[in-house]
């Protein structure tokens, strides 16, 4: 029984419900962790309950009640939390709908503009994604104590500065949305680039759906959801049975999840009709072009390059330029693409060197290609990425 997996999946759900009742993130985390400890003790013998989330929430709530009873008389806010918790007791059947709203509240709290961007991502990954502090630290390439301190400071600020636990009022919503979308996409990618974390991508998609339902008039929300679905549709084809990554051109397109592709396409059409394109919608459209092609050879590269040109207008980053160069290589040949790639300041990004290796090899310069792949190997941060690079190097 993989309890770690269950805990990671249910952490955000449980914490968000408890934060609402307790009004304190730190305390909510403590009682949820208590519930996990209890689960580790009981589930192996008793079996996993039919609703692990419900069990964990109920157990955490009872722990909170016990804790607050011991301390309740001292603080008014604890007494009020106690009343709230007691009232919620035995209401697990209604849990699902409430939970959904609670997670949305929590994500707007975690993504509050008074918090630095890096802090928002870290909080969301920790509190909603259920990553351990160590995993969040790894994602940020900082030592664990540094990340632990950063998270504590952020939670203190939320409490002491009075960052509200609610979905923003309508007038503030569009402005607050950009930060939330960026955070969701980072979470999605954490689950997508690390192949053994599909639950993070699923979580990002799930939160994306909630956001899209809440904000049907925001095409970038729809665009992000479409982008995530179209990427996710390829998951069955992008990993071999041995867990190795398969690059887009080599994927068995028959294994793509057609349901997600269809949904993604419909969403792309729906948001582009609004005529307010943004980075997520354009990236979704690029992915839709790929999904349309029965084989790599039949990809409409002219359309892909045109969409990247559009993307460079709204999001002119070196990574976008790198992806554009890959498409240019297909449309106009590797020589032109190599010039573009060499002009980019992306020395520490392993894909930059992988792409160079590929282009150099196609240009009949195998020694330089090998050197580029060697560099890519050094820069890659995950085992899955290193395996891919090694395969390219040997190929």
């Amino acid at each position, binding site marked *: 029984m993989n309890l770690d997996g269950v805990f990671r999946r249910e952490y955000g759900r449980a914490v968000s419900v408890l934060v*609402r009742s307790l*009004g304190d993130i730190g305390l909510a985390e403590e009682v949820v962790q208590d519930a996990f400890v209890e689960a580790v003790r009981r589930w192996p013998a008793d079996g996993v309950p039919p609703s692990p989330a419900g069990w964990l929430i109920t157990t955490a709530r009872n722990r909170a009640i016990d804790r607050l009873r011991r301390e309740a008389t001292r603080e008014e806010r604890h007494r*009020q939390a106690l009343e709230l918790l007691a009232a*919620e007791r035995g209401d697990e059947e209604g849990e699902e709908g409430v939970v959904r709203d609670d997670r949305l509240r929590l994500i707007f709290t975690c993504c509050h503009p008074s918090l630095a961007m890096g802090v928002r991502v870290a909080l969301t990954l920790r509190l909603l994604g259920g990553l351990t502090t160590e995993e969040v630290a790894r994602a940020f390439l900082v030592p664990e104590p540094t990340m632990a301190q950063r998270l504590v400071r952020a939670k203190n600020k939320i409490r002491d*500065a*009075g960052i*509200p636990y*609610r979905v*923003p009022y309508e007038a503030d919503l569009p402005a607050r949305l950009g930060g939330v979308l960026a955070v969701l996409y980072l979470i999605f990618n954490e689950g997508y680039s690390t192949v053994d974390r599909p639950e993070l991508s699923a979580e990002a998609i799930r939160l994306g759906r909630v956001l899209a339902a809440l904000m049907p008039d925001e095409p970038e929300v729809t665009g992000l959801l479409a982008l995530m679905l179209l990427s996710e549709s390829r998951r069955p084809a992008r990993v071999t049975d041995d867990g190795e990554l398969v690059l887009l051109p080599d994927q068995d397109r028959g294994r793509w999840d057609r349901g997600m592709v269809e949904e993604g396409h419909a969403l792309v059409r729906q948001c582009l009709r609004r005529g307010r394109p943004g980075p997520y919608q354009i990236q979704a459209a690029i992915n839709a072009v790929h999904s349309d092609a029965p084989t790599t050879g039949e990809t409409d590269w002219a359309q892909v390059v045109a969409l990247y040109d559009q993307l460079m207008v709204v999001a002119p980053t070196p990574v976008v330029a790198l992806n554009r160069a890959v498409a240019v290589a297909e449309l106009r040949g590797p020589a032109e693409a190599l010039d573009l790639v060499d002009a980019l300041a992306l020395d520490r990004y392993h894909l930059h060197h992988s792409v160079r290796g590929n282009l150099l090899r196609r240009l009949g310069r195998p020694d330089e290609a090998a050197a580029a792949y060697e560099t890519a190997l050094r820069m890659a941060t995950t085992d899955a990425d290193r395996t891919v690079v090694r395969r390219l190097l040997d190929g």
Partner: protein
Amino acid sequence: MWVVTGCLRKDQAMKQYLLSIYQPDGTPEPEALEPVMRNLDALNKEMRAAGVWVFAAGLHPPETATVLRATGEEVLVTDGPFIEAKEFLGGFTVIRAEDLDAAMEWGRKLAAVLSPLAIEVRPFQ
């Protein structure tokens, strides 16, 4: 089922926030200052009318400051501000607000009136 929106508890419902106004060294031109002061006055009235205003004050420039620090029996007296900086605390407003969103909303108005001065929003304990 309890449906809770917004701030959860009554005792947390109202917090106080310090809106500090940071301004660059030097005296602004009186003719530039005049419309700003008029707008500031209007904002203070708006804050009072909304019931969020607690206190507000402008300060004399930092060279009028004196710093005291006790070491053992002795109190050391220094002429000038505690921190020498290009920008200093020029004044402040204390408001009562439901949460940081509400406080930042008033902070935004203050920043707009005093543009391009920086406004720091900081919660009271």
